[in-house]
């Protein structure tokens, strides 16, 4: 395998949910003194080891609640793992939830700047790419209207266009391939394919077996936070669907 783009070593993630909701500092202090703080610990990921090579398209499969989104969040730097180590080489474009930070009172144009800077770009960067983004999202007539007047498909198109305008080194996709209408789906799939051909590393979560087969070299099957299987796409899919 060539150089890694993403590497996870014994990564575990624990969500800690208090048994009872403790809404106040006063309450907390009282219970702490009495040593009566109880948590339900939930390990969403257990000791995950994973190495994805540069330029590889890697799929992740699993039932709802298996920990797929948690795994992607750990790679996207949103969550720091409770234990273990995550390393990423290169700029990450997270397609986790499109349009993070969109403000529905602001116009499409203002939201491009807001979302673009949230993704870590400078204003000048965004300004120079504004036309391309609007073009790709196909929202030219609506770009100065407030976002609340958009349909959900239009919002998703805008989010996708902003997040993928610059080719990233690592692309993280969480079940968002079905964005917008059929025409836009084709366009977005083409863009992702172009990234892949140019050597972008892709981590892909999807329930679409055909997409996995078409795109991925390897697939991991997650089951209750543990690796059930990992390997060539056909093998793992066959076991998963059995």
């Amino acid at each position, binding site marked *: 395998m060539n150089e890694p783009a993403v590497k996870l070593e014994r990564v575990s993630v624990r969500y800690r949910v208090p048994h009872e909701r403790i809404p106040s500092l006063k309450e*907390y202090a009282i219970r702490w003194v009495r040593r009566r703080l109880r948590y339900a610990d939930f390990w969403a990921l257990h000791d995950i080891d994973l190495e994805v090579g540069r330029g590889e398209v890697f799929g992740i499969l699993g039932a709802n609640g298996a920990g797929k989104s948690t795994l992607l969040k750990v790679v996207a730097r949103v969550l720091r793992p409770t234990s273990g180590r995550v390393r990423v080489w290169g700029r990450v474009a997270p397609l986790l939830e499109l349009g993070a930070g969109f403000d529905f009172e602001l116009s499409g144009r203002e939201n491009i700047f807001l979302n673009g800077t949230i993704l870590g770009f400078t204003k000048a960067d965004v300004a120079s790419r504004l036309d391309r983004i609007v073009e790709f999202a196909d929202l030219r007539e609506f770009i100065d209207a407030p976002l609340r007047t958009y349909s959900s498909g239009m919002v998703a198109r805008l989010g996708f266009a902003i997040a993928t305008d610059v080719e990233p080194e690592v692309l993280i996709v969480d079940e968002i391939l079905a964005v917008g209408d059929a025409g836009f789906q084709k366009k977005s799939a083409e863009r992702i394919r172009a990234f892949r051909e140019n050597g972008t590393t892709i981590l892909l979560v999807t329930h679409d077996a055909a997409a996995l087969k078409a795109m991925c070299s390897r697939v991991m099957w997650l089951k209750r936070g543990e690796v059930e299987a990992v390997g060539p796409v056909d093998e793992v899919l066959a076991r998963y669907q059995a």
Partner: protein
Amino acid sequence: MSEAGSLQAATYDSAARRAPLVRELVEVVRYRDLLGLLISNITKSRYKRSALGVVWTLLNPLLNMAVLTFAFSHMFRFSLVHYPVYVLSGLILWNFFTQTTTYAMSTLVWGGGLLKRIYLPRSIFAVASIGNGLVNLLLSLIPLLAIILIVGHPVHLTWWFVPLAVLLLAMFSLGVALLMSALAVFFADVVEMYAVFVQVWFFLTPVMYPKEMLPARFVWYLNLNPVYNLLELFRVPIYNGTIPGPHTIIAAVASAVVSLLLGWWAFASKADELAYRV
């Protein structure tokens, strides 16, 4: 498996220990354009909500000043000439402190939803509320200058000292903002408790009355009130036309640095949990 890639430093390494203050500030600088947008959006939305818009920011301290002047200037007639200048400069400083710290708590509670979905420097909301406070402070210097001219208070050359006082004030407030906003994410009642606490603090600080009014044995305790030192640092050059004494300067610098370090430490040790919460 090949280890070749490890020769090159990773762009992100979760095991690299938590950002020290400087590293986080570098991150905030990297996101400076987002910071600018957050500040202007806070400012805009605040002005949008009130029909009077920007006028309100200018008017609000003036109205407070008018009420306080009406109520107290008679009482402090002998000790404080040009009472409106005294009280308005005090209020400007006090408002900065309470507004920025309170606002930091509510924006983090709002922005926390965002931290769950995407990586951002966690302290950006606290820094944005300080930035917003600086904009407001700058604006409220306009009514202050107007009042100074109206009552005929001399404009002293010592105004050059004011930016330094504001810098220390901003550092101190950022420390408190970080500490309080980390707490506010975990406990809903912190916001209310803080509001009460700040109210009491206000009356213990000579913002609207001269410090000579306090019983003599309490005056010494003022040295322990960090906001008092910052207040002096800001108001003395404007009102008295002198540079504050070295004791005040040292105390103000110390409070600013200690607050920032403490707030930073509290925030950083909870920063990773923020995305798990909210």
